[in-house]
């Protein structure tokens, strides 16, 4: 997967400046940046929710604009902060939706749903028939991840998926994410503004500022970067209030 000088504009304002970046198979690239840095915009160009103003984004060697939009989106799992579970569908129906759209038979969907729920740490017997409103925030987020994995996508996109849960639940979800990555080895792009989360989950961190790419490095090298924006983020990790 590759960004080739892909940029995005709203009117005359360039939200994302031409971005060139390759995402290697199996890696977790974390897009880190402040609010409005263009990280979500970059993410949405991968599954075609946004089309680049110029340049292109390649998925499996083909420009996103050359893909059939429905086929492209079904190959890519997408998890967002608000999760967007369908409130009128049960957990099982939510998770089984893409397989169902893909025309799988009932038995195969059910087996897949049960396996996925176990994979994200939810007991199918307990949760499959529940509705999203009957779940906690963390459980909903797990269902969101299971749904994104359902049709065995080649790429997973995460847009601040753990932003709205309490820190204890967040750590649980982050550990789950690492376990799933070991198990499945999927290529992922993960958007966050939380530098701790970025360093914990990333194989590489891409730092954006005002729509421009500042730094791309491994988490270890990121901590040693002299880039001012990288330093600003690193400071969030170890700054302590002076004792009075």
């Amino acid at each position, binding site marked *: 997967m590759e960004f080739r000088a892909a940029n995005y504009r709203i009117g005359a304002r360039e939200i994302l400046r031409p971005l060139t970046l390759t995402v290697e198979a199996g890696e977790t690239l974390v897009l880190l940046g402040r609010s409005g840095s263009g990280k979500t915009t970059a993410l949405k160009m991968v*599954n075609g*929710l946004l089309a680049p103003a110029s340049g292109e984004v390649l998925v499996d060697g083909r420009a996103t604009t050359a893909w059939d*939009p*429905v*086929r*492209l*989106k*079904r190959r*890519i799992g*997408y998890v*967002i902060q*608000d*999760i*967007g*579970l*369908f*409130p*009128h569908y049960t957990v099982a129906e939510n998770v089984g*939706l*893409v397989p169902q*759209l893909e025309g799988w038979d009932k038995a195969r969907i059910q087996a897949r749903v049960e396996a996925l729920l176990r994979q994200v740490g939810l007991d199918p017997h307990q949760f499959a028939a529940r509705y999203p409103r009957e779940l906690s925030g963390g459980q909903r987020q797990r269902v969101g991840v299971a*749904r994104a994995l359902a049709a065995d996508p080649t790429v997973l996109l995460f847009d601040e998926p753990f932003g709205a849960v309490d820190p204890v639940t967040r750590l649980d979800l982050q550990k789950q994410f690492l376990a799933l990555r070991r198990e499945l080895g999927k290529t992922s792009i993960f958007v966050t503004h939380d530098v701790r989360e970025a360093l914990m989950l990333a194989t590489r961190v891409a730092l954006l500022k005002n729509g421009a790419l500042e730094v791309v490095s491994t988490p270890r090298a990121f901590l040693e970067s002299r880039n001012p924006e990288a330093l600003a983020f690193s400071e969030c990790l170890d700054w302590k209030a002076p004792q009075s």
Partner: protein
Amino acid sequence: MNSGLLSEIGALTVEHLTLVLVSMAMAIAAAVPAGILITRRARWRPWVLGFANVMQTIPSLALFGFLIPVPLIGGIGKRTAIVALVLYALLPILRNTLAGILGVDAAVRESAVAMGMTGVQILWRVEMPLAARTILAGIRVATVTTIGTATIAAAIGGGGLGVFIFRGIASVDTTQILAGAVPAACIALAADGALGLLERRWSV
């Protein structure tokens, strides 16, 4: 009360219900698709809503009167009455269809698009089920109003329970007026209750 009056109440109630059911079926068939359409075409919204709004502001007796000279749909009788009732019922259904669909959570819609659902799939599997309750509330309001307004159909020869009411007014006969008004009110209450139950059943 004599048996002649009773059997006339029965006959006119059936006629009244027919007017309401036919009008509502046609109003739903027109207003729900039109409401869906204007969720997709924001530029048409003021025109479509404006038309339905104007229809609703015309006093109902005047609307029935206006239609009499109109060719094809006008004249004296049931057809004209039904056209007027349909025009009258459009607005609440239209407005609630629009509000119901636009009210679907943006995150839900975005994730539907991102999962690779087509526009038609999003409409039928996500937007319509989530908007159903609001749309039904609009249909409920329109139905109750139509049951009342349909009594005016008698003024242009459309029949229904209004026949009693107009006759009662002309002959200053309270019994006649009540013979029309009470069954009409009962139908309205029953319809309101039944649609209310359905609305609760459909809540998500």
